[in-house]
């Protein structure tokens, strides 16, 4: 059964009717970990807010657990868990008080659903009497996740949960999501980090309010149409300039210490010679492993 169905959803803001979400459609199966991947301003938060009934769509329709997001907003509100992008718990309440408050508001108790949050909660439990405002970014996220989970939601909406969190905590966070999936909770997560995309079951790449592609991360990578080369030389800036001037170039951009590039006719030897001709030394050209980021950039062009 589909947990979330989105059909031609549209959202515009202001008098100028700035389009934030442009005819977006996708569906998420029960128990799936679905990622909305895209840069800031792509429309991720708007989609999440519409699905959590916080915003009314300007067009199209959507349902969560079979409930319409406009008509049945009450049912949706009591069955989903939502973690906004901005840390939104009470800073002047302790960890325990926050958790207790949200448990009570949702008509449950910490004890009743403790098994759901146990793995996460034990990590912050030593600080349970500390005020939420004094926690580190990673701990705040864990607490927020606990609060969003405490009522055993059927679907969990996590809006950029790892933004502003250190790499170790990010990794831990995704491990927690993987464990939650085993509880048969549908999870929708949004993130601007491409490297997190591969941790989702399926992803939607989104930019400018439009979905570029929806598939499993592996399929998206496999669908990469060209041969992708990783190129290194002594001077990155000049390398990029030179690559742009190449007659057969399709696309080139910096990618870590390498430059990634695709060509109409990818002959590595000829390319190496071309780069040396243009005064670059220490030239290295090899086949690159395609990542989601490469696919995303390809889709943008």
């Amino acid at each position, binding site marked *: 059964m589909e947990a979330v169905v989105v059909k031609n959803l549209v959202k515009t803001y202001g008098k100028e009717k700035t389009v934030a979400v442009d005819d977006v459609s996708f569906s998420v199966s029960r128990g799936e970990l679905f990622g909305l991947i895209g840069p800031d301003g792509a429309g991720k938060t708007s989609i999440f*807010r519409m699905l*959590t*009934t*916080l*915003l*009314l769509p300007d067009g199209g329709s959507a349902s969560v657990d079979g409930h319409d997001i406009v008509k049945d*907003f*009450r049912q949706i*509100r*009591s069955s*989903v868990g*939502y973690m*906004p992008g*901005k*840390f*939104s*718990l*009470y*800073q*002047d*309440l302790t960890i325990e*008080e926050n958790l*207790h*408050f*949200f448990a*009570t*508001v*949702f*008509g449950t108790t910490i004890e009743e659903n403790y098994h759901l949050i146990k793995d996460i909660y034990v990590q912050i439990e030593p600080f349970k009497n500390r005020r939420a405002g004094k926690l580190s970014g990673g701990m705040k996220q864990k607490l927020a996740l606990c*609060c969003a989970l405490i009522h055993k939601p059927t679907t969990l909406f996590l809006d950029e949960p790892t933004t502003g969190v250190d790499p170790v905590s990010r990794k831990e966070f995704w491990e927690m999501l993987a464990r939650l999936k085993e509880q048969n909770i549908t999870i929708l997560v949004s993130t601007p980090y491409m490297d997190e995309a591969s941790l989702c079951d399926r992803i939607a790449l989104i930019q400018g309010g439009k979905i570029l592609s929806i598939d499993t991360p592996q399929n998206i990578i496999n669908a990469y149409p060209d041969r992708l080369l990783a190129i290194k030389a002594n001077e990155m800036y000049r390398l990029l300039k030179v690559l742009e001037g190449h007659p057969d170039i399709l696309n080139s951009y910096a990618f870590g210490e390498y430059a990634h590039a695709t060509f109409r006719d990818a002959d590595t030897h000829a390319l190496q010679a071309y780069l040396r001709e243009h005064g670059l030394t220490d030239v290295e050209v090899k086949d690159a492993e395609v990542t989601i980021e490469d696919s995303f950039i390809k889709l943008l062009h």
Partner: protein
Amino acid sequence: MKQFLAFVRKEFYHVLRDRRTLLILFGMPIAQILIFGFALTNEVKDSEILVVDYAKDNASQELLTKIGSSRYFNIRQAAFTHKEILGTFQKGKIKAVVVFPANFNGDLLHHNKAQIQIITDASDVNTANMITNYLSSIVMDYQNQINQNLEIPYRITPEVRMLYNPQLKGAHGFVPGVMALVLLLVSVMMTAISIVREKETGTMEILLVSPFKPVLVIFAKAFPYLALSLVNVVAILLLSVFVLDLPVKGSVALLFAESTLFIITCLALGIFISIKTDTQQIAMLISLMGMLLPTMMFSGFLFPIENMPVPLQIISNIVPSKWFYIIVKSIMIKGLGIASLWKETLILLGMTVFLLLVSLKSFKIRLQ
């Protein structure tokens, strides 16, 4: 119900953990009562009076003793001549000068008529008026005293009685005024800010995506401030009875009931402001500018409404504190009961219902 209680408890945590809020909540009422009760008084206590006595006879001495023995005046005898009086006023310490002409007693006895001159510093109109009034009544008193045994036909003596406040104590007017002011500030500003804060910090977003009814959010937010404001009422009344010597003449229970009603009116106003604003600063600004100023101006507490131009008098009717001020004054000082206050009570009740309905109607159950 359990949800509601959890929410109220959370709200108390917020208030009790924020020192600044606490200070405003409880420091302000106490400070205001004490300031208005003691420092900002418009009574004429121990005013310095200068006496220029050209007569130096029995009658002038008797009258002087009478003036000096009242607690309103401190007499400074001085052998000044008339001309130097102006100079002493300019120094600013002297509030009034009483001049007895030469042969005061003689005039009184032989012509049945004598004059004294009272010169006051009218740069402060209220004080000048009050001092002349007090002095005139003392002179009047003395006149009655010496006329006791004489029979003069056709004389009308007005006998003035200051009802409800015979000693003309300033605190009588201030306590109800401060009460209206403090309750208004605490209830309107605090509620408005605390609801807007949830919007600003994003917690409202989570609260909306919960089974908790948005309407209940509002009531749960308002409830703690109702309780805290009632604590303030108790504090103000205790201060007024034990520190300012101003007892509650009417029913204390009725006073509490009316205060509760007024607090709810204010809470409704605060909720309304919070719905219409998005940042704590704006909410605070509106509460202060929109509530404090009209209350000071139009409640009748600082400026008598009867003296205002008609348009302003009409405007004053929509200020809730005006009605509450009338109610408190009537109960505390006049000792009136609900029978004479039902009109004001009904007006407050109407305002409350109206504000609550408008607030509930315009409360957004979604963002934007």
